[in-house]
């Protein structure tokens, strides 16, 4: 079971991480993209954090839709429509309520990631955010199937995302601006996969912190 407070904590935590890692993300993006990913993600999530203040009475579905719309309009780069789609499709797959079940959470990620793939036409191994999201999803599915604790499940999912992120390093980019570089995109970690890892790990942190308190 995930509570509304945990969702709020997740988003705020994500905002903190993107603010802190802004320079790093931009650094990664500078190598193989247009050096705006850190700023874009940070801008989007600071807006999300601001908007959360007006959503104290909203349910989880509403909050996640708000995140989608905010990211679409404020991120600016390709991450806007992509993360926007993740939240939009994800939010569309769950019920309007102040609590969601573990399987609802799984639905959120399944539908969201499906949406991102459709939008970006990216496959695993294309050196994109999908490369950390898909392994995370796979792990989450298994853990929930095995009736593991949600805190544990998310922690493992975050580890898988991290592994996926690191494995983008030797890949050749197939999508986005990095794909213009071809072979030269090798030996760089993908910024999108990195920001996606942060998103998953923020969720893991938010849920585990809350249950330990």
């Amino acid at each position, binding site marked *: 079971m995930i509570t509304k407070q945990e969702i709020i904590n997740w988003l705020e935590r994500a905002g903190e991480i993107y603010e802190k890692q802004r320079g790093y993300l931009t650094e990664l993006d500078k190598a193989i993209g247009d050096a*705006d990913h850190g700023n874009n993600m940070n801008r989007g999530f600071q807006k999300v954090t601001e908007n959360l203040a007006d959503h104290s009475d909203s349910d989880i579905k509403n909050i996640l839709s708000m995140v989608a719309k905010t990211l679409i309009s*404020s*991120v600016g780069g390709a991450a806007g*429509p992509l993360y926007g789609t993740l939240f939009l499709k994800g939010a569309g797959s769950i019920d309007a309520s102040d609590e969601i079940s573990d399987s609802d959470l799984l639905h959120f990620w399944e539908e969201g990631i499906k949406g991102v793939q459709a*939008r*970006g036409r990216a496959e695993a191994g294309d050196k994109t955010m999908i490369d950390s999201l898909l392994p995370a999803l796979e792990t989450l599915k298994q853990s929930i199937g095995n009736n593991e604790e949600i805190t544990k499940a998310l922690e493992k999912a975050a580890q898988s995302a991290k592994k996926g992120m690191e494995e983008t390093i030797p890949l050749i980019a197939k999508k986005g601006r990095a794909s213009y570089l071809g072979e030269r995109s090798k030996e760089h970690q993908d910024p999108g996969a990195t920001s996606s890892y942060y998103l998953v790990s923020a969720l893991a942190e938010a849920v585990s912190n809350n249950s330990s308190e």
Partner: protein
Amino acid sequence: MTGIVIVSHHPDLANGLKELALQMTSVDIPLAVAAGIDDPDDPIGTDAVKIQQAIEKVYSDDGVVVFMDLGSAILSTDMALEFLDENQRKNVHLSAAPIVEGVLSAVTQAAAGASVQSVMEEANNALSQKQASLEEEYPSDSNSGSETDTKKTSIPENAIKLELTIANSLGLHARPAAQLVQAANRFKSDIYIKNEDKEKNPVSAKSLNQVLLQEIRKHDTITLWFAGEDKEEAKEGIIQLADDHFGEKTSSRLSEPKNVETTESDSIPDPDEEGAWKGTVISPGLATGPAIRPSTVTPKISKETSSSSKEEWSKLQEAIKAVKSELSDQKKKLEQHDSEAAEIFDVHLLLINDSQLLERVHKKITENGVSAAYAWKHEVDAVIESYAGMQESLIRERADDLREVTGRVLHKILDIPWRKISAPKTPSILVTDELLPSDIEQLKSQSIIGVAAAKGSPTSHASILLRGTGIPSIVALGDKAIEKVQEGKDVVIDAVNNQFYPHPTNQQFKILSEQEATWKERSQATEEDRKKPAETTDGTRFRILGNITRSEEAKTAIEKGAEGIGLYRTEYLFLNREEQPDIDEQYRHYSVAMESMEHDQTLTIRTMDIGGDKNVGYLNQIHEQNPNLGWRGLRYHLDHPELLHIQLQAILQAAHDTERHVEIMFPMVTSISEFKKARSVFKTAVSEISNYNKELISLGIMVEIPAAAILIDKILPHVDFISIGTNDLVQYTLAADRNNEKVQAIANPLHPAFLTLLHKVIKTAAESDTPVAMCGEMGGDPTMTPLLAGLGLRDFSMSPGRIPEFKWQARKLDMAKAEELALAALDCDDPEEVARLLSPE
């Protein structure tokens, strides 16, 4: 009509493209832009919601084509489609065409009324034109992209033929080609075109890309074929268009490269904290009182009419005739005291005689059976829009003229009176959207004590006329400044400090009314003494001169107390027209200015300073990255000595005939060699005049380039006088554009570096007994006088309206203190320190 949406990461990119594309057509195209995101610090990006809104804005069931730049633009557009209503979505198409070429093709095609499919197709073909034109450079890559070129088109046997030779100087480049394509699309017949000189295959003349691919240049012979039911009319239509040089004959100026002016009304978005708005001061002064708004009732126009097309058409012709006769009357009235201003009405007469426009209106009335008023308004609005979208302000101003003159015609058709400024009983302030030239005549006869206008510019016709009235006035305040002003409610115009208060508080109104009274008293006092010399407390005498733009202003300047003309900017004579003024016309203008002088006064006339911020089409100027550092002033003239020769001849002859002393001043001199070259042109001109009186003419330069100021000691032995142009000298010395808001503050004449340069010039000139004047903004600013006088300056030239006040202040000056101040200023580290010296508070 097919709608078009431009999606880009950067608003400048999208809006620039929009502007470029709309120049291709005079038809009102539904075109919207979705660019950038709402983050003022970093606006680069795309926003799916904005894109959705843009699509909805131009949406009709005729369909919409969206053009995107790259990356997230495509993703965001994809997402925007999802947000759209399902029924709309199927009519929205995303084009893979290169964005610039694609949009330009699409706009032309859409303007011609083409279907969404053909707009898409045409856009997708856009790349091939560019590829074809680059093909020569990539011979190995043959056939790529030129598919459209090699595809054979067979001409139907019953087609009729037309052969033309192209006279347009740039051939059928984008705009005239667009005219041809639009005309061709008005006919049902199939129309084909072939460039005989380039051995091309015939292609459809209804497609812009195909026409452009024909690479039709000047003197090329083209063949056109017409096949279909209206082939005769089509041929006739194209002949007419060709006779009109594909729309370039009357609008060649419009196709020249333009400079972007950076200071326009869009840079004045909000009032200050006191609630006052800034604009452009036309005539200084203060006025407080109730507002009046001119009664511009937008007439109701119905599309339908019960009368026949013939009756509607004659209604329109009657109306035009009536307006023409009114204009002629007004012109005659004005001619008696200002012939140059009267020419404004010639422009108006020209505008409503536009045969192309009339033809379109006629077509609309006869073919669509609509009312004359509707057809007129519809066609005129399209023209106005295309003028208004122009970058060059002088051309944009033609939109104002056109709006006025066509508005008059419209009112005549509908038989309702053209706008009247209702006679107020109490002195009132006119608050208006824009001031029209015909308003000024009405102002004079009524108790209007101030004018505030949302639109306008210092060089518009209305402003020129307004300046002549001396009524305190500010224009270009922006729409927001005036929108809530109610008739009868008090407003305040402080055209001394460039402030307009649309809703003054009681407190403000009271204070400003008192200031108004003081200003009136003061201006009365200064006016009374305006002809007395400007002599300081210790008897130092200043010479106060006038800056003028038009010959008639010389008289006004002398009347205002000028002791001569320190700067006659002749370039106004060359602007805003189709061809350059000939020697007789120049002679007439120069003579008028000279005759306004007393025999002991001097007129300093500056040879044409075109370039920089002023650009003239017929002079074949080139488009420059940085026109202020470019081909302007004497630089241009030395490359075209024949033009300089004509101007010098006209000046010399006028001086000779009027027997006035004239100083000829060359602008933008960098080195003395340039002056020497100009002088040899002068000598040739002199040799052509018999019994020439040498005493009458002096030759000098405008010191406005730092190089000339630094080497002033090398220049002075060769010239009779110099005049310091501070506006340019400041911006060149400090490398800051005075029209660029961001760096305007850096272009501060109080900078000690500039003052040091100024001091060197003035001192060196004084040592060699060479007269030195100052004719830039700085010279006319009374707060600068102590500093300038202290640096040794004695001759000040300024706009005539400033003279009475300037003299009044100068008379109170203490020279000993001024010299102390100048010395202290030269010792300062930065302009702020100098400013503190000037106004210690």
